């Protein structure tokens, strides 16, 4: 639907691909390793992870939209500063929005909502994608990246909450005799869990590459 207004660079790929690539192939956390700070800091429970993921998705979609709309008016020399200002505006909006919806979540996430401003993922998408592509594509790209980011946060938050607290979204998972692994809730648990997820992704990618190599060999 937006193939005609894309301003050049990646005009060939089908539009749905802009959405799907963020989910798996270019997943911001597991593949690009971007935006680590909030990923590690707020993933100690699944509900926090979900709230953070949704807030980030909101900001990334809106900032992609605005950056892409204004892309022909922003002078090259001050583009990064302009992007940061646009992002900071939307983060302020989201900060007050969360405060209005649920004070508990706002307290649990603390300063990390404001820190969405310096999430390199959002600035990265604005610079690498939205400033070079049409509005429709940019929205889809932002949505895909946001959902992929939320998915990764949930992966971490789920594992850490189940092992560290014996619950998922506050509901008990294990029978009452379960001894929680306190270390998973502590900061170091975040590092370990993320390292293990990265290992899993490395393994999957290595196996895929291996399979493609054997297929290429088998073919005459």
């Amino acid at each position, binding site marked *: 639907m937006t193939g005609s207004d894309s301003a050049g660079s990646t005009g060939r790929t089908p539009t749905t691909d802009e959405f799907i690539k963020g989910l798996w192939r270019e997943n911001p956390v597991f593949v690009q*390793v971007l935006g*680590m*700070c909030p990923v*590690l*800091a707020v993933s100690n429970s699944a509900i926090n992870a979900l709230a953070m993921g949704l807030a980030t998705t909101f900001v990334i979609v809106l900032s992609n939209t605005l950056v892409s709309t204004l892309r022909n008016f922003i002078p090259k020399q001050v583009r*990064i*500063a302009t992007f*940061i*200002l646009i992002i*900071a*505006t939307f*983060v*302020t909006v989201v*900060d*007050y929005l969360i405060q209005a919806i649920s004070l508990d979540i706002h307290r649990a996430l603390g*300063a990390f909502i*404001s*820190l969405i*401003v*310096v*999430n*390199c993922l959002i*600035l990265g998408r604005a610079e690498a994608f939205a400033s070079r592509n049409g509005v429709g594509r940019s929205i889809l790209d932002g949505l895909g990246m946001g959902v992929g980011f939320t998915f990764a946060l949930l992966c971490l938050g789920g594992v850490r909450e189940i092992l560290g607290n014996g619950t998922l979204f506050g509901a008990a998972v294990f029978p009452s005799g379960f001894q929680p692994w306190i*270390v998973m809730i*502590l*900061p*170091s*648990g*975040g*590092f*370990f869990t*993320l*390292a293990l997820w*990265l*290992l899993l992704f*490395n*393994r999957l990618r*290595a196996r895929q590459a291996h399979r493609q190599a054997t297929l290429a060999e088998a073919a005459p």
Partner: protein
Amino acid sequence: MSDDSLWSIFLNASLINNFVLAYFLGICPFLGVSGKLETATRMGGAVCFVMLVSSVSAYGIHQFLLAINAPYLQLISYIVVIASTVQLVEMFIKKMSPTLFRALGIFLPLITTNCAILGLALFQTNKGYNLLQSVVYALGAGVGFTLALILMAGIREKLELATVPEIVQGTAITLMIAGILSLSFMGFAGLGA
């Protein structure tokens, strides 16, 4: 709330609640620049300086915003101040020491998106520190950041001589080391109190 002694603020920011290992702030440079001991030290110095300057400016801005009753401008004005401080430091280093400028390279402008600095400005505002306390807090945070960076760089330099399974190489092993470092920093928890 803000009557903590200066020494306990310093200890708190540098060791007990280390910005990198307990608050997860500034993970990107922590993973990116910690390959070599020398760059890690210089990066730590630059971050320390930017932290000090932006802490003082953030204090001033907060007072001003309180005076004109516009707290919603906080985030936007903080990020602008940090970005301009980094720009200033960049110009200053370029003029005074071109060698250091070349050594730091791309990481200098990237300090803007270092969440440790914005985090510092936000935390000191939330905790209601006065000017002196803010400066000490910034100093502690900077020292803590540099310490974590140097520890990590030391371990990674040694690691280059060890055999690491191919699949664990790169970010995964760095994160595991960070996890162990973070565990050992938990031992400082009893220090402040």
